[in-house]
């Protein structure tokens, strides 16, 4: 059986800066994989290449046996890849429910319909998705006035709208209160395991990482320096030296407010 996601020798540079180089890994369905690394390590760049937002300089990305390198994000999405952004990207002029409805309309290929009321489309599915992320009570609220944590949850709901096989989550809990972070990741992990979705996520909060990740990769200056189970990575001397330093690894509180 082929892996859900198979990445080979991915590389991207900006001018002289090698943001990502020679990254290879694979991800199975239902597996939760964490990508960690210090600021500027190249994590977001990786995510952006995976969903097609930026074109890699080299390397290949294979989704369920299909080469998706260099495809546009919207094409990648149609192949079953959902994602959330480090800085939330939602539709501020719509209600929470409408945000999800647009994603559903797109998923069902109904976006070109010109003479139907979109506010009435896929109501049930939208409500169900919102309930899944615990946002059902806020369905009618304007997206523009949501608290940041709620926006992150809304993003998750949107990302789940196309029944994704693979979920890419770039710092899904950045900017949330510590309890909220744990809750959200628990929620995500639950959904992923239940539906057999492969999840690749990045996170600065190590509590979150070590509680949920089946496996952890460490990126530094664009290169993977360690891969393995959370325990193995935690013990890896190179990781400790380069990235985690003296005990930061265990001290999530220390990074509080880091998002700022």
């Amino acid at each position, binding site marked *: 059986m082929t892996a859900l996601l198979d990445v080979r020798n991915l590389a991207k540079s900006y001018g002289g800066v090698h943001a990502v180089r020679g990254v290879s890994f694979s991800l199975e369905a239902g597996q939760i994989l964490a990508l960690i690394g210090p600021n500027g390590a190249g994590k977001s760049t990786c995510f952006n290449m995976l969903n097609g937002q930026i074109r890699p300089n080299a390397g290949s990305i294979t989704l369920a046996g299909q080469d998706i390198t260099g495809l546009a994000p*919207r094409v990648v999405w149609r192949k079953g890849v959902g994602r959330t952004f480090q800085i939330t*990207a939602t*539709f*501020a002029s719509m209600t929470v429910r409408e945000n999800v409805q647009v994603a559903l309309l797109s998923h069902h290929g109904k*976006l070109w319909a*010109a003479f139907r009321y979109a506010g009435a489309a896929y109501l049930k599915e939208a409500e169900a998705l919102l309930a899944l992320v615990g946002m059902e009570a806020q369905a009618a609220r304007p997206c523009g006035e949501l*608290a*940041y944590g*709620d926006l992150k949850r809304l993003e998750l709901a949107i990302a789940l709208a196309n029944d994704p096989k693979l979920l890419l989550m770039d710092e899904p809990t950045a*900017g949330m209160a510590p309890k909220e972070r744990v809750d959200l990741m628990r929620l995500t992990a639950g959904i992923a395991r239940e539906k057999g979705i492969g999840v690749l996520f990045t996170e600065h909060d190590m509590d979150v990482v070590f509680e949920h990740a089946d496996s952890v990769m460490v990126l530094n200056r664009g290169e993977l320096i360690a891969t393995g189970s959370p325990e193995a990575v935690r013990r890896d001397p190179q990781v400790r030296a380069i990235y985690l330093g003296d005990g930061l690894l265990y001290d999530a509180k220390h990074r509080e407010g880091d998002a700022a």
Partner: protein
Amino acid sequence: MEFILVQTLSGLASAASLFLVASGLSIIFGVTRIVNFAHGAFYMLGAYMAFTLTDRWTGAFGFWGAIIAASLVVAVLGALMEMVLLRRIYQAPELFQLLATFGVTLMVQDIVVLIWGPEDLMGPRAPGFTGAVTVFGRMVPSYDFLLIALGPVVLGLLWLLFHYTRWGVLVRAATQDRDMVAALGVNQKWLFTSVFALGVFLAALGGALQIPRTTVSHSMDLAIIVEVFVVVVIGGLGSVLGAFVAAIIVSELNAFGILIFPKISLILVFLVMAVVLVIRPWGLFGKPESAPRPAAGLSIRPWRPFTPAERIAVAVGVFGAAVLPFFLGNYALTVGAEILVFVLFAASLHFLMTVGGLASFGHAAYFGLGAYGAAFLVKFTGAPMEAALLVGPLMGLAGAVVFGWFCVRLSGVYFAMLTLAFAQIAWSIAFQWVDVTGGDNGMLGIWPSTWASSPRGFFWLALGIAVVGVGILRVLVFSPFGYGLRASRDSALRSEAIGIDRRSMQWVAFIVAGTFAGISGATFAFLKGSVFPDFLGIPTSVDGLVMVLLGGIETVSGAVVGAVVYKALAIWLMSQTDLSKLVLGAIIVLLVVAFPKGIVGFLEDLRYRLRPPRANGAGPKTAGYGIAKVEAAE
């Protein structure tokens, strides 16, 4: 060979004043993101002021002192405008500043006539630069050499200013990233004001230096403003060097172009701009614009369709309009029909701007194409009005299909300028192709069928077209297509990541908007009984923009109200006073300051405040919002 050299020199001299004005505009835009429509007005004021001062102060010192003093005085006026007017509206939706400066431009046009009189004024020639220098046996005015030298000198001075003064470094930093400068704790207010003053100074200097070459008149501003915009865009917004290079390219192409095509001047700059933007979407020296300002926080109340009660109100309103012919006289009905035509035109632009997020500066092109389409059918095939109204707008549609395909590849100001370029190209075809379009004399005798030839009949026809048109556009707003379009406006990133094909959606929106503009144009042709190139002209496009902004850019159908108010006001003022521009400009400025969300936006705010919708307290209200703000600024 000598001839080529001399012609090059002439071109360079023309480039110099263009560059001065353009560099000012570019600097202002780079830092404040304001599309300063009043830049031409300051150019003109510089010339008038210099005329007055050079008249008083004679001699070489007097002359050059007057030029500098005039520019300084106008720079102070510019700073005043920034402080009194623009500072109040930096937070308003983008383009609102354009509207405000447009209002100022209108006012200045009348004010200079009131102060300096209607006649063209001719100032003195520059002392010491009245003669000519013989170059290869041809005489070149020595003033040309002065101008040719001045271009690089000003460029160099600006470069020094931007690289060797703290202020200049701040300006450059602000051009790169406004928020960063705010974060550095710099007093942004004064930075903006000083930048504005510098930009206006350059414009005024450009105007003052024209005195030795031409007369000063109250139409100088319009003669230059569009060209200057074009130069700035070709060079790349915010790039002074770009403005310099673009000014030279445009002037030289013109100098040599007229040798082969003596009529090319009319359209040359727009052709150049269209080509440049298609090949280099950010101009020659521009950088890709950072993602347009996030819409978050702008429109906190999501749109919704009318409630049953509102539907009834609208139905009553339409009915009320429909019975007007029983109460109003012929003139009022004809004015009413004209307003209705512009209601649909404004609504079509509104659809493109608010739902599509694409502010077009050349929407008149499709209005005009629709009008000419109808006129062609009547004139060349003898088609009746009914057929012409149906088929004519297809020309607007066709134009939108072609032009839109190029335009939706760009965004922001570049999009706006490419639409402008295409509109000007369409205009110049209508203007030049005399055999087919009748040139500036237009096509006459496009009168409606008998049943609609009475003011009453035509009013009903126009009402029907406007109601159906606005209705369809409204349905589209709330359709899946409208949602998808709005999604790609709200967040390009997110919409692309959920499979929305942004370009195609925007292209279709462009075509829809163009078609409805074409329908209103065709109706207008029959209302006026004629079509003219000015239907496609810049003033028509600007009128449309003003209507949309006045109505409220964040509303669903604000343009309807904006069109009614603006058009009624414009027609009424036109009929009442010769100073209609002064009054209209003042009203626009007041409205902009009083209702930065537009009239309908203001009314909605009011209603919301008086009767907030059911409170929905679920979820933490503000916790984490501060973080969101900081994150967004990261």
